[in-house]
């Protein structure tokens, strides 16, 4: 594993103000993410893991602290800079796939590759997640697992430095979930994309290089797996 740091977060704090109540979502998080690393972020609801992911992905800004990505501080970036950042450097995978229903699998990927700098071909990306046979199907013609694999293809097709996945298997059954995780593992292995997966599901931690546990807005623990399991060895 290389020691290159992709993200470097220091003292990240996030406070949501909801009327007169303040909700502290992050209480000073320090975190480094390394190139080619596969990280699983575990934690109960409200532990702050989604907030952390949103800030890393340029969807939300921190109340204080800094996130350095390739010399840029995302916390102080403008709306335009954040859009640029998401466009060229980050891939997202959502729990509910969020495919564009009016576009086919191939077109959903192409929608992103057309605006990226050095993308792979949509067909290539879909091949990588095992969807090479269903290029011209619309979302309505695909199962949940297939839709999520298209979403992964869409996320990796731009060759992002980092892939952020929020409960990618949350809406899927175990068998389908494993197929999706295999797609993620393969992308990480073959493309070397730094991958962060948020999940409730402790079992998934087995396939990670590193498991970070969050609780109450802080990093409660971080451990390296000495041996990464293949997704096919997982079961829940």
């Amino acid at each position: 594993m290389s020691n290159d740091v992709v993200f470097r977060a220091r003292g990240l704090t996030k406070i949501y103000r909801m009327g007169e109540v303040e909700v502290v979502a992050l209480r000073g998080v320090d975190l480094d993410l390394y190139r080619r690393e596969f990280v699983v972020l575990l934690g109960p609801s409200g532990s702050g893991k989604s907030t952390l992911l949103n800030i890393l992905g340029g969807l939300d800004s921190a109340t204080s602290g800094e996130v350095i990505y390739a010399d840029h501080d995302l916390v102080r970036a403008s709306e335009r800079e954040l859009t640029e950042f998401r466009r060229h450097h980050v891939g997202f995978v959502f729990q509910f796939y969020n495919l564009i229903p009016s576009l086919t699998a191939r077109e959903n990927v192409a929608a992103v590759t057309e605006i990226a700098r050095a993308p792979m071909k949509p067909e290539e990306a879909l091949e990588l997640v095992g969807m090479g046979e269903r290029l011209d199907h619309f979302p309505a013609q695909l199962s949940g697992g297939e839709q999520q694999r298209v979403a992964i293809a869409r996320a990796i097709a731009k060759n992002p430095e980092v892939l952020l996945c929020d409960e990618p298997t949350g809406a899927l059954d175990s068998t389908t979930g494993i197929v999706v995780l295999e797609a993620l593992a393969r992308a990480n292995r073959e493309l070397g994309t730094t991958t962060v997966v948020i999940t409730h599901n402790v079992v998934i931690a087995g396939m990670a290089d590193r498991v970070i546990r969050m609780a109450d807005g802080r990093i409660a623990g971080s451990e390296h797996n000495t041996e990464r399991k293949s997704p096919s060895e997982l079961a829940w």
Partner: protein
Amino acid sequence: MGVLDRKLRRDLWHLRGMVLAISLVLLGGIATFVMARVTHRSLAETRLMYYADQRFAEVFTSLVRAPEPVAERIAALPGVDRIETRVVAPVNIEIEGYGEPVTGRIVSLPDHGEPLLNAPWLRLGRLPAPFADEEVTVSEDFARAHRLEPGDRIAVIVKGKRRPLTVVGVSLSPEYMYAIPPGAMFPDYERYGILWMNRRALATAYEMDGAFNDLSVTLQRGTSPRDVIDALDGLLARYGGLGAYDREDQFSHRFITEELRQLATMATVFPVIFLGVAALLLNVVVTRLVTLEREQIGTLKAFGYDTRAILAHYLKLVLAMVSIGLAAGVGAGLWLARGMTAIYQNFYSFPYLRLRLDADVFVQAVVVTLLAALAGTLLAVRRAAALPPAIAMRPEPPPVYRATFLERAGLQRRLAEPTRMILRDIARRPLRSALTVLGIAAAVGTLMITNFSRDAVGWMVDVQYGLSSREDMTVLFTEPTPQRALYSLTSLEGVEHAEGFRAVPARLVYRHRSYRTEVEGVEPGAELQRALDASLAPVPIPSEGVVLTEYLANEILGIAPGERLRIEVLEGRRPVLEVPVVGLTRQYLGVNAYMNRATVNRLLREGPAISGARLAVDAARIDTIYRELRRMPRVAGTVVRENSIQQFNEMMEETIIFFSFVTALLGGFIAFGVVYNSARIAISERGRELASLRVLGFTRGEVGYILLGEIALLTLLAIPPGFVLGRGLSAYLASSFTSDLYRVPLVVQPSTYALAASIVLASLAVSAVLMWRKLAHLDLIEVLKTRE
């Protein structure tokens, strides 16, 4: 307050943009409906009251001269109820400090007591005192134009003799609500006035002692005017009767009837469009709303709310939405009706106005609106409420899309994904897309009608005064005058050219149809007054036969060129002539019959006589010309072309401009309402999709393209059918406004198309700006969250 009602209140607040847009369209529909109906009824009712109060007659005729005892024979005719004989005299009027020639009409009043019929309605001062010789009451419009008040002095010239008179009152009359000078087309309050004075004084001045030259009659209940008219014509023929006519042919009455009829047409056309679009819009919005709330409906049902409660909830929501537009529309309609009736009251000199507010107008407005609203809602809610709660609560499966025809036709490679999204979304909901296009097209159409009236009027003026009546002024003689009078006109300094004409009142008869008008004998090769053919090229008037206005030949008489027309001359020896129709002319104002002047003289067995002349003059010398003309005793009046154009424009401005303004405003409402709602629906429907794209790195501009591209494309698609619709509506209005008074040509200028399109595009731009701001607030984090 129940929980559902609280939800209702919050939903309304949340949807305020849409509520506002729908309300605007509804307001447009209801307001035009209420305005037009209330105005129409108020005017119709006021007119009836006014006629009754002033004892407006039912049959009218004028004649050369009949001794007063003839009146007794007329009163004895079967069917005649009351009669009034009068002396009516053309006069020249002198007003101190006013240089232009002024003409008018003096109408006699009984020397004592109220007039039996056609009583003037006194606005100021009083009627002439019994047997007073030098007192006169003047018409209000004329008094206003010259700031005449009781106590002022004017002079009239009757039969060449000047008589000073004192104004004692200002009044109005149902007979002259729309008073036009002889030879003119439009009222001219500055240069033409109606005066009333005592009969004895007038008869003496006009050499009509013991005789009358004007007769009005009311009929006994159930009498046919036709019978009385025939009897009168028979009786008065030997006294130079000019042909009796009933109220329907009385000029002032005709004109106002025509105007009221147009108002009634407007009262139908516009509200139908507006309410139709509003219904359409409501349907789309409510269907969308209910579909978006499908999960909530499922949840409510899971809690144990029954379908009826849910249905009631959404009906309440829709009713709350429409009631705003309804209330505002009724209010605005009443306000506009007041403005509109005030304009008409002033324009047609109604002495008072009875604003008539019938409950049924409001009931109709409410019923139509509610039907439109409920039809849309019931269907949508029933469908949503019919789902078992477990299914309704689950998020909707991804909608099914297909590649569109355009792409299958091979365009696929050329279209980027965002463009494909736009096309597929339009194609996936063809009905909704079509309704949106229809709504926007309706807006374009409405906006076009607004300007069409202006285009048509402009065209009418151009043709009438640019191509047909090209004289600078028309001089009318008091009676047929030898042709050599032309020489004295041409010898006036400043008169460049003069053409004489001979106009004869006549009844034109073909089979069972007939029409009263003037046969105009014109000089062959006349330069100033020209008859035009359908392509607006001058038509020569052949030496034999008669040329008729198209409308007169085709619509009124049903006669074709080659057939013979009977002309019953209503003047002099009253000969009856049989003349072939040899041609047709196109003419937008009035209807006429043209013949060669010499032929008219020959057929009337008179020498070369003329009734008047058309002059081309040097504008710089016009004052001298006026002065000279006033010295000529035979000159009964002059009509100056420029004044006519100005009066025509003023008349059109007053009535049309207000309506145009209102419809333009409301057309704008429709355009904005439809476009904004479509965009707003798109954003609420596809917010998640668009936010996902933003997360994936699409810029606001790129996402905006997908959102607004669709509505922009639909707007562009709607413009051509909108043009067709606008032209169709214009054609409908033009044909419904057509009468013998005027024909409205179907002329739509390019600027009218351009204006309608640009207002719609401006609505698109405003909606785009509003949507752009909404896009800034798309919640990107929301899409990552677990959907509850």
